[in-house]
């Protein structure tokens, strides 16, 4: 079935939860309500054999020139290996409540993709088994892909001092290059 037909069928099925369909360079995108995302994706997975999750990422719409619906979006790119059709879903997430249901129940592989989206954009996935930072270190402040996050910051990462201290501590195991008492004691 053509992707656009699938989109129309979905619109018939889910009515008010589908905010719009658009096509760009032959790729079909559906804007959907975040509350039904798991339902829609499991419908597509079951009825249209969309069994491959190509891509999952988040978008911050804050500086978008064109009109947008909500500040955040989570983009799902689905593909059917059998039917060779693909479809893109964009779940709308308001700034006031940055949460969406996790699809880890449908794909185990979505686990890390959702963690990444959480790490870089701060979108919280409900029912995720292990939602913590992945690319940035634990204790990192802010979410790098937000539009207000500066490309070049002016503060050092908080964990850096601690890391340096630990490095000196570990040198005690080093036979030839053990730290002097002064170095080891220079915690402050």
């Amino acid at each position, binding site marked *: 079935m053509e992707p656009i037909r699938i989109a129309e069928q979905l619109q018939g099925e889910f009515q008010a939860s589908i905010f719009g369909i658009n096509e760009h360079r032959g790729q079909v995108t559906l804007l959907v309500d975040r509350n039904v995302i798991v339902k829609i994706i499991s419908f597509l997975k079951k009825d249209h054999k969309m*069994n491959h999750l190509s891509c999952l990422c988040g978008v*911050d719409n804050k500086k978008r020139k064109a009109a947008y619906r909500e500040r955040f979006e989570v983009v799902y790119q689905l593909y059917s*290996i059998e039917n060779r059709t693909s479809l893109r879903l964009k779940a709308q997430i308001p700034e006031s409540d940055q949460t969406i249901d996790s699809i880890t129940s449908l794909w185990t592989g979505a686990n890390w993709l959702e963690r990444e989206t959480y790490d870089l954009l701060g979108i919280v996935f409900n029912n995720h088994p292990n939602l913590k930072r992945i690319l940035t270190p634990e204790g990192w402040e802010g979410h790098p892909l937000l539009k207000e996050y500066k490309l070049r910051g002016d503060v050092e990462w908080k964990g850096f001092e601690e890391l340096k201290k630990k490095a000196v501590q570990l040198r005690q195991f080093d036979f030839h290059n053990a730290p002097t008492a002064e170095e080891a004691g220079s915690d402050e």
Partner: protein
Amino acid sequence: MNETATLDIPVSQGDEDRYRLKLGPQHPATHGVLRVDLELDGETILDCDPQVGYLHRGFEKLAEHRTYAQNLVLTDRLDYIAAMANNVGYCEAVEKLLAIEVPERAKFLRVMVCEMSRLTGHLLWLATHALDIGAMTVFLYCFREREVLLELFAELCGARLTTTYTRLGGVRQDVTHEIMMKLDTFVDDFPACIEEYETLIDTNRIWLKRTIGVGQISGEKAVDLCLTGASLRGSGVDYDIRKHMPYAAYDQMDFEIPLGETGDTYARYRCRMEEMRQSNYILRQCIEKMPPGPIVCDDAPDLVMPVKPGRKVEVDTSARNGLIKLIEDRDVYMEGDIYVATEVPKGELGFYFISDGMGRPYRMHIRSPSFIHIGALATMGKGVMVADLIAIIGTLDVVLGECDR
């Protein structure tokens, strides 16, 4: 040794066999800076938690501040083992977004470098994977052939690894007759080399014992874990983007997709070996069919000076501004988004772009196969022995530059 000098590895009381081990990040078998936190019972892994991010350079953030042409160099640093394939993937995506048509010769050149980089990628995979499992000799044999290909890359574009060979709208350099002759010799010799590797390890009892039945996953499970590339095809799932969504000149090439059956490390090894043969066959076709013509299209928004008369590049602006201006001139330049995937040696490399008319991507997401494969390691590594985990890391074929981005 004084009191403070203990490593912070907690050992649970009462069960002396259970302990935690941090494998990596400085471990030769983790193929880069991958750390795997293991909970072990003797040598059996109870829990496996891969930690990534040591190489995170924020490419996605950085890309939002650079033009489409400038972002090309970032893609070399993703999968630095097969940079050519990344270049092609990036350019295919941007060209589709900006509706740029690539000349036929450039398409063939792209397929050629893609397959060459697939060979370099697979050769390095075979070398390191065999080394991890204990077959030292193959390493040297693979590097011998890999060197020939890297020398060809250097001759083609001046760099061995960070190539930046493609350009939006084509490729940067045309091939010379000497390069084609050298490649021709290589293509003639290479099938014998593959047989050589196979005689070294295919009858080796240790190799067979350490690969057959190790890291076995069913096709269904592999799709559930979002695996792609040979890691997925080893389980018998027929998904190769070169066939499913042909890009460049792949629709004019005759080749087969090798599939495995058992889904274990050995099946994936067989898959990749057959893939190398197919790549070699594609290279042969590229040499024979290479059409004449231009290598960059006339309206390429790039550093290449426009061939068309009438295209004005203001003299007084800096090169940087001129570049942005060229891009902004395009009437196709519009609001929209696109996802384009290509088949790199590791699997499916996808680029998702949102454009909003600024000459830069509003958002660029890189769907990197290695990131997802390492994510699958947590599931695949549970319940196996530590030595088998090393085999699984090797068989998934990960590279950390691409994983951490």
